[in-house]
């Protein structure tokens, strides 16, 4: 009997489903029965939805199917590689005092984390631990905001999700010190990771969350992250994400937030490096008087592909949302912005602003911008704007006439452009750190 040569013709979908069948019930097991039960529903949903192609409007400019054709192994089970404490040094923000959480390949690592003392009732831990120890809390919120029946990547994540970040802030508790989450990827293998985060802030609670993503490896890593946020009545969340991974690291960052009455949510997404980066930010201000802020700064270099996709789904009256995404595209990088403001029929008195500004530096770089408004209520004020261009010649000339070199003038103008977003960062140490890094990058 001869063995036929193995021809690798399987599609990414088939590979993920096969991986699920392999790990399900063994390595993927946790002790939370609800999560176990949802995995099967999620993989079924994944099979039905399938990966989006170029014909899918939401993925028109990002060929995700092609990116996933690379044979990533789906990582399940315990972490394999040990990371030493000194490896963390480059990713710490100087001067930032924080409750530190470290996730390696999406797994919570207690030995590297330094959570310190938290206000009473606040929980900061790994998602796997929380789903055992705080099953009630997790079960109340898990999959409620990231709907795996409609979102294929939420489905993929839900099927494989094992660990990630869990934060709980009880009623009336203000967490003054920011929580810093350092996401590291490591190992020699090309893997697909599915980290899962859940952040719950109860009524009148307040939280500052600083996330960073970094790689310690040259291997190709694809991270399909899902973060669910519940922001209770009158609660406040300030969220910052710095995406700063290696040139072989791709990522889908799926943030789904649910806001209750009078709540405030602000998120800043700073994309500095990586290969393919897709940020999917969905907000549902589901009660009156919510405030939602979305800021983004994306700096493309090399052959980076950065796709920012946002949806603010105004379901109830009297809410405010503001969105500003700015980008600088260098080398042969590609930028995509697709922002949507959706105002449902009852959401009267909505105020929504959306703005996307991009500077394209080279002939190889390109930008696709699609700011959308879909409005079904009449008493609203909604506007959006988008501009794409290069640095103003007049502005450069002005600075040169004051004795600045061309280089200096360009750096200064680019930095000023980026600072519109950086200034929105309310944690001084983080803002100064990023400002210095970005200034150094523009100077090169």
């Amino acid at each position, binding site marked *: 009997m001869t063995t036929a040569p193995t021809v690798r013709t399987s599609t990414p979908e088939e590979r993920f489903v096969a991986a699920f069948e392999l790990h399900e019930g063994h390595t993927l097991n946790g002790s939370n029965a609800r999560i176990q039960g949802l995995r099967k529903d999620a993989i079924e949903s994944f099979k039905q939805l399938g990966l989006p192609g170029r014909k899918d409007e939401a993925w028109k400019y990002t060929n995700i199917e092609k990116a996933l054709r690379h044979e990533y192994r789906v990582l399940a089970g315990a972490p394999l590689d040990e990371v030493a404490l000194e490896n963390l040094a480059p990713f710490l923000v100087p001067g930032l005092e924080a409750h530190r959480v470290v996730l390696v390949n999406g797994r919570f690592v207690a030995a590297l984390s330094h959570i310190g003392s938290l206000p009473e009732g606040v929980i900061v831990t790994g998602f796997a631990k929380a789903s055992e120890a705080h099953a009630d809390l997790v079960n109340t919120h898990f999959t409620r905001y990231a709907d795996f029946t409609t979102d294929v990547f939420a489905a993929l994540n839900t099927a494989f999700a094992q660990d990630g970040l869990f934060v709980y802030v009880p009623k009336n508790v203000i967490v003054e010190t920011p929580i810093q989450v350092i996401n590291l990827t490591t190992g020699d293998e090309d893997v697909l990771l599915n980290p899962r985060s859940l952040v719950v802030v109860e009524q009148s609670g307040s939280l500052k969350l600083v996330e960073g993503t970094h790689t310690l490896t040259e291997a190709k890593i694809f991270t399909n992250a899902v973060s669910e946020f519940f922001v209770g009545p009158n609660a406040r969340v300030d969220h910052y994400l710095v995406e700063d991974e290696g040139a072989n690291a791709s990522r889908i960052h799926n943030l789904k937030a649910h806001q209750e009455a009078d709540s405030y949510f602000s998120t800043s997404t700073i994309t500095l490096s990586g290969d393919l980066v897709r940020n999917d930010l969905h907000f549902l201000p589901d009660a009156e008087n919510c405030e939602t802020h979305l800021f983004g700064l994306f700096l493309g270099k090399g052959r980076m592909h950065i796709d920012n996709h946002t949806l603010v789904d105004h379901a109830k009256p009297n809410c405010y949302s503001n969105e500003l995404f700015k980008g600088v595209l260098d080398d042969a990088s590609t930028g995509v912005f697709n922002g949507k403001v959706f105002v449902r029929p009852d959401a009267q008195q909505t105020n929504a602003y959306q703005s996307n500004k991009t500077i*394209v530096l080279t002939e190889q770089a390109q930008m696709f911008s699609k*700011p959308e408004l879909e409005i*079904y209520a009449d008493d609203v004020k909604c506007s959006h704007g988008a501009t794409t261009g290069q640095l103003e010649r007049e502005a450069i000339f002005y600075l040169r006439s004051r004795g600045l070199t061309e280089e200096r003038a360009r750096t200064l103008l680019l930095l000023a452009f980026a600072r519109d977003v950086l200034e929105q960062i309310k944690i001084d140490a983080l803002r100064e750190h990023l400002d210095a890094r970005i200034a150094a990058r523009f100077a090169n």
Partner: protein
Amino acid sequence: MSYVDETAFLQEVADSDYKYGFVTNFEAETAPKGLSEDTVRFISAKKEEPEWMLEWRLKAYRHWLTLQDKYPRWAHIEYPDIDFQDISYYSAPSKKPKYDSLDEVDPELLDTFERLGISLVEQKMLAGVAVDAVVDSVSVATTFKEELAKEGIIFCSFGEAVQNHPELVQKYMGSVVPYTDNFYASLNSAVFSDGSFCYIPKGVRCPMELSTYFRINAAGTGQFERTLIIADEGSYVSYLEGCTAPRRDENQLHAAVVEIIAHKAAEVKYSTIQNWYPGDREGKGGVFNFVTKRGICDGDHAKISWTQLETGSSITWKYPSVILKGDYSVGEFYSVAFTKGRQQADTGTKMIHLGKNTTSTIISKGISAGHSNNSYRGLVKINKSAANARNFSQCDSLLLGDKCGAHTFPYLEIKHPTAHVEHEATTSKVGEDQIFYCNQRGIGEEQAIKLIVNGFCKEILAVLPMEFAVEARKLLDIELEGSVG
């Protein structure tokens, strides 16, 4: 002002009936319902077309057959599937005379025009406007032809152009909108009945505004117009297209194709008023308007400008576009789209920048009332070759009710660093403070809303040719009036 009054007024606006619903009874020769190669041959034979024309139609028809599973569904509109076998593809007035003067024209037809307030007689008196009236697909009366002929301008029906100027038709037809372009363009290429053809020779500035009036008339006849405008080097033409259609119960399909070619330093200004029957209050019976309009600035310094006022049709699906191929060429799009009742409009433009130093401007104003949905969908594409391209887009929406929707879907694709692209959009309702201000000066709420809406659209109405602007303003007022005179 009392909120109730405003609501009641807007309600009436949204509910008001179509004012131009009537049917002209003149005999028409209509093809039996259904579409097959035989239908295409029948149309071609009826029009006594040469072999190459029939071949082209058949190619388009065969291509259309391959598109059946690619029925366009992406637009933000909802409608039942169209049974393409339940439509008659050809209808011509049976008395097909070639009149020398208007006196010989079927008096009933003249009456129709008069009731529309655009009588040919009056038009002729006004002078400066030549009218090529297309009633149900065949040119019935063509005026001012000789005067245009003196300048070497060809302005005739598409059918005549096929007979008399085959070299021009063969060269340019399908060069901007190929028969493979999209579902409805393919259908049109296969079964188009007639339309207008216009050629402006080198260096000629067309002495008058060219105008056609399209009317859908016989029951159950889809109208498939085809317009081809060629502006040779350094020429100028302003072309007007306006239409109103009689009341109908079944949906009428309209799938026109308009192609414009502007050579070096030529300028074409194309203005449209579209006021077809929008259906009754429940949205039943209106015209489906699926139009492909595109122009190409083929040479340097060419300019194409689209202006449209869209108030009719139950569904409008229309994106007048410009391909800016020549260096320093200019594309413009000015639009007012007004929807009420159950009307749905998904309209906008595409500006494709290929040449260096090309400029485009998009100004779109959408007004929604009743249960209607009004979307702007536009693409600005700056290609790798388009150095120093410049675009400015502005899309504003005004909502006149809480059951309607206003949407903006702009696509900006930039592949050159020197591009300068700006887009802005706003959505709001008529401000209570604005109405209050008018009330305070003794202006009633109805008058105030008219005033504000007119002001909102002013930028667009201002670029319409004079006669059209008058008609447009009147039309907007009537649309807003409801039954409150």
